[in-house]
């Protein structure tokens, strides 16, 4: 990244540029969601868009998640290219029937006749003291369902570029964006644009241990890796990026290289993306492991409001550092 010209922007701004570009590039694209227009987007991602693109392209919708997500799916069937925003992932439970029984299923159920080119974006994550009903990490649910492409936007580059590629797919794409990253600044290439949405990415090369993570775990893991480097531990950091279908190759290559794996995930531990990664390593690289794979996950509790309890309920940088130290001592 040092070669090319870069620009420093917030994650919010990166999302915004990607979205704006999509609206400009394709007249069939429109954005629909609660408060995306007049309010400016619950997280100010679409601020100013209503003025720029008008009410036909930027549709405020009533509180009716099943209804408007389903309408987005229908609009996709009808030849449009809808981007549906579910204000936060928490409310997506109300639309889960539409997403699973319609969007993920129609292609198959119709014997291949019907494509459902809908993109569904959802703000996600934990860390703003929003308490139990507003702090879900539903990545594991969506990662379980065949027919969905599921993206987790853990970096600024992906915030800038994943949407463009998602809009080239003919199948439903679910995009997890993270509230806790919105205000964070980072450098991205000046001409950042469409990114592949098939592969996991090695965000940091290392030889001693692989941290596999996604979403808000990525920057936390990178920070932990920097700190661990001071103790001479050279950690590789893999950002899964695509939670469904999962890219096995990148994972296995890393296991074969480092022989030690720690998985970091904010979602609850049981039946999680971590469980799946561990299973794949068990199946594909068991004999390459020096120590059992470990995972740091969300504590299995409805996320509490109080800050200290909330912090304790998801993995923090310090936890990562400590776990890696533990795993390295087990030699």
């Amino acid at each position, binding site marked *: 990244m040092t070669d090319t010209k870069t620009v420093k922007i917030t994650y919010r701004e990166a999302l915004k540029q990607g979205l704006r570009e999509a609206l400009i590039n394709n007249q069939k694209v*429109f954005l629909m969601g609660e408060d995306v227009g007049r309010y400016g987007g619950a997280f100010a991602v679409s601020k100013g868009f209503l003025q720029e693109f008008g009410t*036909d392209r930027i549709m405020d*919708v*009533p509180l*009716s998640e*099943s*209804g*408007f*997500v*389903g*309408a*987005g*799916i*229908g*609009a*996709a*069937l*009808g*030849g*449009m290219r*809808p981007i549906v925003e579910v204000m936060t992932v928490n409310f997506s439970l109300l639309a889960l*029937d*539409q997403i699973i*029984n*319609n969007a993920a299923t*129609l*292609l*198959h*159920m*119709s*014997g*291949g*006749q*019907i*494509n459902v080119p809908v993109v569904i974006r959802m703000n996600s994550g934990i860390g703003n003291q929003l308490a139990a009903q507003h702090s879900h990490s539903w990545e594991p649910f969506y990662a379980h369902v*065949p*027919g969905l*492409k599921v993206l987790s936007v853990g970096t600024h580059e992906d915030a800038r570029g994943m949407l463009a590629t998602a809009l*080239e*797919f*003919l*199948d439903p794409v679910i995009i997890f964006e993270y509230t806790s990253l919105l205000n964070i600044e980072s450098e991205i290439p000046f001409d950042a644009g469409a990114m592949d949405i098939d592969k996991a990415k090695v965000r940091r090369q290392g030889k001693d241990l692989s941290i596999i993570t996604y979403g808000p775990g990525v920057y936390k893991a990178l920070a932990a890796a920097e700190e661990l480097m001071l103790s001479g531990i050279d950690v590789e950091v893999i950002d899964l990026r695509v939670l469904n*279908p999962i890219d096995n190759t990148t994972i296995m290559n890393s296991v074969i290289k480092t022989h030690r794996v720690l998985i970091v995930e904010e979602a609850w531990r049981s039946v999680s993306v971590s469980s799946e990664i561990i299973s794949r390593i068990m199946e594909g690289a068991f004999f390459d492991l020096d120590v059992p794979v470990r995972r740091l996950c969300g504590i299995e509790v409805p996320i509490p409001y109080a800050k200290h309890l909330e912090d304790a309920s998801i993995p923090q940088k310090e936890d990562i550092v400590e776990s890696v130290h533990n795993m390295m001592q087990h030699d």
Partner: protein
Amino acid sequence: MEDKEIQNESIIDRKIGLELLHKMILIRRFEEKSAEMYTKEKIRGFLHLCIGEEAVAVGVMESLTEADNIMSTYREHGHALARGVDPGSIMAEMYGKQEGCSKGRGGSMHLFDTKKRFYGGNAIVGGHLPMAVGMALASKKQRQDHITCCFFGEGAIAEGEFHESMNLAALWKVPLLFLCENNLYGMGTALRYSHSVQEVEKKGAAYGVESAAVNGMDVLEVKKAAKKAIGYIRKTGKPYFLVCNTYRFRAHSMFDAELYREKSEVEAWKERDPIPTLRTKLLKDGLITKDDIDTIEKKVKAEVQDAVDFAEKGTFESVQDLTKFIYSNQR
């Protein structure tokens, strides 16, 4: 009453009369054959027959154009046949053959034929309504002048999706015909146990959606009401809610002991069978002869036999192909 009949005359002549009768008889005989094939275990899964309700399918479909979109439920053989989906491809579908309209992946509940703009075959009660709003929205956005017609049962009205969809359709002013087949039961639950207000057409007012109810046992009345509804939609671009009051003569599905209704009630409704009703009228009005009826019955018999033959001759998809149609693998 007399007035009504006169108006009916005006929309019927020999040609149309024969066509309507033919279609209703085709549906009836096709479904009788389906039931037979179910007992022979050629067809499995859930099989929902619309026998008794043929006037609705035929009367409504008659009034739509080829460009209009149709969405239906799991009780959709009649709609599919009336729409002109090939009977052989439907029978083959129920046989699970790859020559079926959904390649054998869908079965009776999931008939699809995009060439006929027939979008299922949806088996989550009420789950297709939001999509129908979206399809109509897509038409509006693309300034196409076709409409979407969405069939559902009176049971579906209790689902939140009905409410959200009516509100969205009205709010966004999309060309959508909400077509309720009120057959008085949702499985074994009578209308009076599922709705606090039982004249369900009254629910349109809560959304400012133009609404009407019609005798769904008379294909001419259905046709007239549908024509009016569709005319309104084409003219105003706004949704319309049409309730067709009808009755299913058969059980809900093949697993139903019909404990919830009296035989006498069924018999009373059979007195209003839409096929004899039309037949008698056409004969009385001198538009057709007994010979015509024989001709139709013979023709239908052959059509149904052809469908069965086609299905019998059909082939099973290779198990190798199991995972086709999960993703389209296209961009």
